[in-house]
């Protein structure tokens, strides 16, 4: 019988193996580097809806109904998100007996203070239609979900009063333009939060529409990333929670660098030991508001001055005095991802010191905490000097403060609309609000280096952070 393969082929294979195995065993291996880009979500090509959607639309609700014909669950999914409810899940907080929720729907900040009673303007950024001042909003009406806010081409769509489509919008054109959300959809509200470009966040502003690589390595880099590349979205549930609108945040619900940067080794042991105590953002976001300035101070007490000239960056009669700052170092705090405290309506004011709107949780002894960069927004905002809590004036609308320039009427209106009792005596209290910084990320060559924090010229206040002194000499936390 003739063998299919002569026996000498066995020897040949043996020799080849005998050579290849040791060679590959001893060949220097280049460390397999995880490619972060490999973790980016795959994007499906969006179906062009131009030929799918037709008909005449006169209201937003009609458009939504059209969407729901095919995307049956879409509205229900959106309604399960805080984009719709403007309110967090329930938290047990130590200073209240009942569970509480936090959100624009029911709490205040130290910018425009409150959306309650100011629905006319504020709802421009709500993902629904027709939320008005005097009636309880019906959160169950599916057709009130505004699909276009996130899916329309923003050159064809805009929102107006009470969240309704702005006047003059061609709803058919807007509906036909729908696609996966782009930076424009998110940016319209998130870049302009607080009523203007870059007001609220130090790390989110209109410069991110067309960012350079030196502004943000992710969005401006060669990957040209979109918001949803990090804020992974499934069934309209968008990953990522805002600290200021929560008390604690489940890490599972938060965006993190580790989603893509699985291997965080820097090829430098000295740098890597920092990972235990320093967040990625701390070194890789050396400065805030790199191109467009952001508001760092807002003094409501100066509002309403007759004859003082308005200037967008320093004074507006309706809002008071401001400070804008650009390209400045963040404030550093220990941070474990949660708030230690979040001001709830009715909470007392610290008359002689600072009242925290929110205070990030963490300390040098908290092993889950890392040093993290924040934008601190300081404000002087009204409070009831008798009841000793912060007030939430109605500003928008006919009888609002922005029309009357009479604080009394603003507070009275709030008592009517929100049920926040007003004693008739008010003053202005200093409040702090901390905004975590996580965008405008810089590449390694622009990140902080040793001398940025350590040594005489360093930017860290080590004693304030709880160290006996510069840890380069005194050692890190135990």
């Amino acid at each position, binding site marked *: 019988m003739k063998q299919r393969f*002569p*026996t*000498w082929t066995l*020897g*040949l294979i*043996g*020799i080849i193996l*005998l*050579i290849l195995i*040791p*060679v590959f065993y*001893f*060949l*220097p291996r280049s460390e397999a580097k995880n490619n972060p880009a490999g973790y980016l979500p795959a994007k499906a090509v969006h179906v062009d809806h131009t030929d799918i959607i037709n008909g005449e639309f006169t209201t937003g609700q009609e458009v939504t109904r059209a969407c729901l014909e095919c995307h049956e669950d879409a509205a229900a999914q959106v309604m399960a998100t805080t984009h719709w409810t403007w309110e967090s899940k329930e938290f047990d907080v130590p200073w209240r007996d009942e569970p509480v929720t936090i959100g624009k729907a029911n709490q205040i900040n130290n910018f425009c203070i409150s959306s309650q009673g100011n629905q006319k303007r504020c709802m421009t950024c709500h993902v629904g239609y027709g939320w008005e001042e005097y009636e309880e909003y019906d959160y169950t009406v599916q057709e009130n979900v505004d699909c276009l806010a996130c899916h329309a081409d923003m050159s064809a769509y805009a929102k107006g009063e009470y969240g309704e489509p702005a006047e003059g919008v061609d709803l058919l054109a807007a509906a036909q333009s729908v696609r996966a959300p782009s930076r424009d959809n998110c940016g319209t509200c998130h870049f302009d939060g607080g009523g203007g470009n870059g007001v609220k966040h130090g790390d989110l502003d209109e410069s991110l529409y067309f960012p350079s690589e030196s502004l943000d390595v992710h969005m401006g880099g060669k990957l040209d990333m979109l918001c949803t590349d990090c804020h992974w979205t499934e069934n309209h549930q968008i990953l990522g929670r805002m600290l200021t609108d929560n008390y604690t945040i489940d890490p599972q619900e938060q965006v993190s660098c580790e989603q893509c940067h699985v291997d965080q080794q820097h*090829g*430098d042991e*000295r740098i890597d030991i920092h990972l235990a105590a320093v967040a990625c953002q701390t070194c890789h976001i050396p400065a805030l508001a790199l191109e467009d300035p952001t508001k760092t101070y807002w003094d409501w007490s100066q509002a309403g001055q007759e004859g003082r000239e308005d200037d967008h960056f320093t004074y507006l009669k309706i809002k008071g005095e401001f400070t804008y700052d650009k390209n400045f170092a963040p404030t550093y705090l220990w941070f474990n991802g949660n708030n230690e405290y979040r001001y709830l309506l009715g909470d007392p004011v610290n008359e002689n010191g600072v009242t925290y709107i929110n205070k990030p949780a963490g300390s040098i002894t908290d092993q889950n905490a890392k040093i993290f960069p924040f934008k601190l927004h300081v404000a002087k905002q009204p409070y009831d000097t008798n009841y000793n809590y912060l007030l939430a004036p109605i500003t928008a609308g006919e009888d609002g403060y922005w029309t009357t320039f009479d604080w009394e009427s603003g507070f009275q209106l709030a008592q009517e609309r929100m049920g926040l009792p007003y004693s008739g005596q008010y003053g202005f209290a200093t409040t702090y609000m901390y905004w975590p910084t996580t965008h405008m990320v810089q590449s*390694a*060559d*622009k990140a902080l*280096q*040793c*001398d940025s924090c*350590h*040594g*005489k*010229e360093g930017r860290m206040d080590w*004693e304030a952070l709880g160290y006996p002194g510069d840890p*380069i000499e005194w050692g890190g936390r135990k």
Partner: protein
Amino acid sequence: MKRYTLLTLIGLTILALAIGIGTALAAPTPAPTTQASVLHPNFILLDANGANVLESGNTVSTMQTCGQCHDTTFIAEHAFHSDLGLNVYDANAESFNTSNGLFGEWDPITYRFLSPANDERLDLGTAEWLMLNGARVVGGGPATTSRGGEALADLPASKSNPETAILNEDGSVSTWDWEKSGTMEMNCFLCHLESPNNEARVKAIQAGEFGNANTATLLGLNVVGKNSEGWSWNADAFNELGEIKSEILRIQDPTNSNCAACHGEVHADATPLTIDACDFDYPQTATTGQVISAQRINQSGLNLAGKNDLTRPWDIHAQRQLECTDCHFAPNNPAHVLEAQESNPSHLLYDPRKLEIDEYLERPDHNFARGASAQFNVAPELKSTMRRCESCHDTNKSHAGWLPYNDRHMQVIACETCHVPQMYAPAYSTIDWTVVRIDGSARTECRGIEGSDTATDLVTGYQAVLMQRTDIVDGKTLFAPYNLITSFYWVYEDANGSQRPVRQADLEAAYLTNGKYSADVLSALDENGDGKLSEDELTLDTESKQQLIAGKLEALGLSNVRIEGQVQPYSINHNVVDSKSATRDCAACHNAESRVTAPILLASSAPAGVTPEFVSDVNVTATGSIVNEGGALYYNPVNENDKTYIFGHNRVPWIDWGGALLFVGTLMGVAGHATIRFVVARRRNRQTTATKPVYMYEAYERFWHWLQTVAIVILLTTGLIIHRPDLFGAFSFRNIVTVHNVLAALLAINALVSILWHVISGEIQQYIPHPYGFIDQMIAQAKYYIQGIFNQEPHPFHKSKQRKFNPLQMVTYIGLLGVLLPLQGLTGMMMWLVQKVPAIQDWFGGLPFLAPMHTLMAWLFASFIVAHVYLTTTGATPLEAMRGMITGWEEVEVSEHDSEVRKKEAKKESKKK
């Protein structure tokens, strides 16, 4: 009585409790945080007479002031920064150097010569030396004390004593009044204040007001002011006890900026760093290009080539917050007690008997730990006492996983060679004092910049040259980076027969008349005839120009004038980069163009016929050669002179040419032989000889043979790539070396196992010739290859399983497997082992012998393979032998002879039985 005792007891208990509670309550009082943590107390500023300056209004005396608590006499006596070579001053030195420090060591950059007593011509007197070098003199030593050890102020004034004389601009000599000028004590403030006023200090020194210099250091600090009447001490800066307030005059450890005042560019803040090219006010930077800063290079204000990509800091140690004093420490500082413990008896790991901090603060040793730079020779006994790379870094760990042959690399290469890959600031290359510019300065050349302004002209930086540095501590000689500064200057012989550099004053007299070039000089040097001398024209590049100047110098009364040149290496140890920016590419050195032998420009134009000499008596040896290329001088390192062999760079031409010739010769010989065989065979009809199949090779024999074949072929190929990486750029040098080593190990194991097999199976006999008639048989076989094979004669030797090799084969294989292969293995093994056993480097010439031998034998192997493969085609059919080696079965010719032999053997066999 009882009651009294009880009462007392109760009373005591209450008291104890009260104290206890009080203490407990008092304990958690937080430490006051507002008070600045000033360790140094307030102190009285004393003048030279020991009176408070606030009362006397005099200048401050540091020796008196600091001497209140610190032993200033001890400090001044233990400070080479202060002594500057004074204690070894030797007026009768053979060379220009009358000491080993700034006071006496002649430096061609500053040029002026510190005249010893009784010289024919006074150049620098002590006072003018101090004015000229004051920016780099901390005081004390030669600034207060004469060469003979007396106080300068006590010297009798005399024009003939260089210590009390000064050369005037017009060439005349006057006496110097030390009483009037004062002398300059060691200036504690200069190094121990955060912002001493160095500018005012230097100004005072340059004005010859030496006694004012230390007080001037305090100007502008709200402590003291100066007006036409003298010093006015600011009473507000002093407390009610008459002490200066410590928050006003804050005494501190020296910072990098303090060291920078004399040494070079240190940049600590965030403003973009700017420097002037080759500015000798920053000597360390001007001579080497070293810049101490944590700033990223691309953030600096220099117009650097490729700046955008230079994101690393200027100096990694500065970035990582190290201070100069961390490595250059005071030797008796108890914080550095571990260094001092190196002299412990061997059984002691730690000796607790050390200075206490208060003892140290009273008498801190200011003879700081120093390196072994080639340019500074003061306090030679302290060379290499500092903390060095290996004092902090473990090279085995830091290079683990990527640098092959770590130990070997460490045996020959200093850390700085790879970790200071490039200098980014310009540095001097040439100082030509054979000519003078119109302002009396020398013609200079600066490397690392195309022009002169670092902000507008392109700064390219430069690559330091590698020289052989012999370590003073461990005696190891390593390649280390240096800048070379070449100087040319006129020398004359004075009346005492001493060699002296021609005085700058005499040079100016020879070149200039009334502040302009003399007409004869101009006409000789001005080549383009524009009436000016450009930097290019300012050179004595012809004999006639030199003769003209020599004549003019001789006319000034100088005899035996001639031009000399010297090359001074400047060590580069700072501006270290981390592993990511260090030289990591094997091909940087292991290539035809090697970092190790990269040349450096000495001077783009040099005086005709002058070859400068390297300074002697330093731990740097120049084993390369100085070459002249079109008027420019270069230094070419020649690593072969350093007992090193760099794979991929070094080769021995005759071995390569000889080997290649042998290989090509064999190839051509074989080709010729094959052609004749082919042609002859075509002409004649092939006679079919009867053949029979024979099981010629056991499975193991074939396995062994082919494994060896593959291994050798791969070894030859990879060896060739390692030998000539410039021809095979596509391959990773490092991977190829690994493959080569693995295959070599495989080949060696294969050979050892096969020896065992051959001995056990008795097959070894195949290789042992039977002496009887062996030579005849060899001749017969050779004749067959030369003649018989073409005539299709039968093989003179008949291959059988018992005797596979013909006599020629046998001899070849003995040579190949018995001599060549072991030798090749042995040389290869030693080359590999030299990293672990450095002694091999001393056996028969080390790598420079082993490596070329290895190459030579590789050529022999390659040639053998060609012949061997060809001769396998001389079997029954051309491919038969090869088939035999693959399958084991080979068709072998049957012949009369064959059968006879078989019969004989059969008989022998039967007889044995």
